[in-house]
C-alpha cells in the first residue's frame, strides 16, 4: 500500500538518511525505534512531505514516482491520505477541540458542517473525549491533547497514520490513556507507523519493529524475534540501555 525505496536525505553536508526502504501493507502496525538523532522523525516527515528528500521513490495512493518528480498535486494527494500525530500534539491553538477535528473535514475534504461534526463527535468519543468538544487546547492535559491529535487524524479516515513519539511529552500517568487508544486503533485494523520508546507497545501491538541508527535501518523483524534475539550487537546495546533507565 505504501512503499518507499532508496530514500536519501542530507542536511547541509551531513547525510541523515542513507538508502532507506519501507513497505507498509494494509493493516500493518510498524514501530520505529532507535537512538536519538538516528533520523526517525526526519524519515516520517519526508514520507508526509513536510521535508524534501534528496533521492528515493514513493508508491502510495496511486502515485508511483521519484520524490524529486512529485508535483504540487501529488503532494496534496499524499497529504490528504495520511494522518500525523505529533510528539507535541500541534493542536490548532485557536480552535476548540471540536473545531480541531472538523477543520480538515470541512476545509480540505469539503464536507458539510453537519457531516463533519458527526464524524468528529464519533472520533472524539472513540478517544474518550466526547465531553470536551468546547475546550481549547490550552485547557487540556497533555494526555487529553494527544488524544485529540489522534481523533483529528482518524476522523480524516486516512490510508495510514504516522505517530512521532506520541507519548514522550506526557507524564507517565497520562501515557496509559494514549497507548490504550492506539492499541484499540490497531485492533480495529488501522494501518499505523509509530516512532516510540515504549517498548511494551512495540512488543505487544506491532507486527514489525524497525531499528534505525545513524540513518540506516540496522535491523527489522517481528517484535518477538527482535526483542528477544536481536541479531546485531548495536540493537542489543540499545535495548539494554533503554531497559536500564526504567
Amino acid at each position, binding site marked *: 500500500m505504501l512503499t518507499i525505496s532508496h530514500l536519501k536525505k542530507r542536511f547541509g553536508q551531513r547525510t541523515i538518511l542513507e538508502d532507506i526502504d519501507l513497505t507498509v501493507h494494509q493493516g500493518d502496525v510498524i514501530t520505529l525505534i532507535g537512538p536519538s538523532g538516528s533520523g526517525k522523525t526526519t524519515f516520517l516527515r519526508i514520507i508526509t512531505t513536510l521535508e524534501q528528500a534528496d533521492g528515493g521513490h514513493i508508491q502510495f495512493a496511486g502515485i508511483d514516482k521519484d520524490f524529486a518528480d512529485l508535483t504540487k498535486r501529488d503532494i496534496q494527494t499524499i497529504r490528504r491520505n495520511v494522518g*500525523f500525530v505529533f510528539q507535541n500534539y500541534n493542536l*490548532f*491553538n485557536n*480552535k476548540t477541540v471540536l473545531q480541531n477535528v472538523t477543520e480538515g473535514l470541512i*476545509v480540505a475534504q469539503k464536507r458539510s458542517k453537519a457531516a463533519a461534526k458527526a464524524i468528529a463527535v464519533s472520533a472524539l468519543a472513540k478517544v474518550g473525549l466526547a465531553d470536551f468538544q468546547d475546550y*481549547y487546547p490550552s485547557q487540556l492535559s497533555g494526555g487529553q491533547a494527544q488524544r485529540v491529535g489522534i481523533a483529528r487524524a482518524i476522523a480524516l479516515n486516512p490510508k495510514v497514520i504516522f505517530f512521532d513519539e506520541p507519548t514522550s511529552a506526557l507524564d507517565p500517568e497520562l501515557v496509559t490513556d494514549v497507548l490504550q487508544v492506539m492499541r484499540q486503533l490497531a485492533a480495529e485494523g488501522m494501518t499505523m507507523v509509530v516512532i516510540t520508546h515504549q517498548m511494551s507497545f512495540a512488543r505487544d501491538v506491532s507486527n514489525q519493529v524497525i531499528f534505525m541508527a545513524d540513518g540506516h535501518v540496522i535491523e527489522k523483524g517481528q517484535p518477538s524475534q527482535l526483542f528477544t534475539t536481536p541479531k546485531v550487537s548495536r540493537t542489543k546495546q540499545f535495548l539494554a540501555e533503554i531497559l536500564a533507565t526504567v
Partner: protein
Amino acid sequence: MSLDTAFMGQVFKLTLQGVPVTLKIVLVALIISLPIGFLFALIRIYQVKVLSPLVRLYVSFVRGTPIIAQILIVYSAFPSFLAQFIGKTAFNIDPIIYAYIVFALNSVATLTEVFRSALQTVDKGQLEAGLLVGMTPAQTFLRVILPQALISALPNITNTTLYLIKNSSLAFIMSVKDITAVAKTQAAFSYNFLEAYLVVWVYYLVIAYVAEFLFSTLTHYFSRYLVAEPNKNWFQRLFSFRQPNTAVTNTQAKRAQFIAKEVNHVNN
C-alpha cells in the same frame, strides 16, 4: 493668555465634518495595507526569490523617507505624469484617493515588519499540522496561523494605527479636508490656532481611544483560547485598564518550552 472658548465651541461643531474624512483615510489605508503587509511579511519570511529583496527595499525606502517626500511624488508629480496618457481627466481625481495611496503605502511598510515579527512567534508545528489534515498552505495561513499571529501583532498594529491617525493630518497638503484641515481653516480667519489645535486634540484623543478599545477587544477575542478567564462584557472592558496578562506569559512560557525542546531535539 485666555482661550477664546466661544471660538472653540464653534470650531468643535464645524470640525465634526472632518471626522468622517479622517476616519475614511485611516480605514481605507488599513484595509488596503493589512492584507498586503501580511503578504509582504510572508514573502520576507519565506525569502521568495526576486520579490523578497524588492519588499525589503520597499520597506526601507518608505519607512525611511519623510511622508512629505512621498506626497510630493504621489500627489504633485504622479497626476501630471498620468495626464500625458489620459488627458485632463487625470486632474479630476478626488485628492482623497491620493491620500489613500500615500497612507496605504506607508502603512504597508510598517505592517510588513509588524507581521514579520508576529508570524515568527507562531509555532511551525501549526503549519505542519494544517498541511497534514489536507489544507493548502493558504488555507492554513488564513485559518490557523493568522489568528494566532494577530495576538502579538495587534499591539503593534495599534501603534501603527495611532501613527496613521495622527499623520493623516498631512493629507491637508493634498487639499483633503480632514479634522486638522477644517480646524486650521477656521483658525485662519482669526488666527486662533492654539484653540483650534486644542479642539483637534480632543478629537484625536477620542478617535484614538476608540481605536485602542476596538483593538484591545480584538486582542481579547483572538486570545480567548489562551485563558479561561471570566469574560468581561464590553462595558466593563471600556472602563478597565488592562491588567498584566499573566495568562499570556504562561502560554508563552509554555510555547518557549516547546520550542526549546524542539531545538534540543534537533540538536541531539
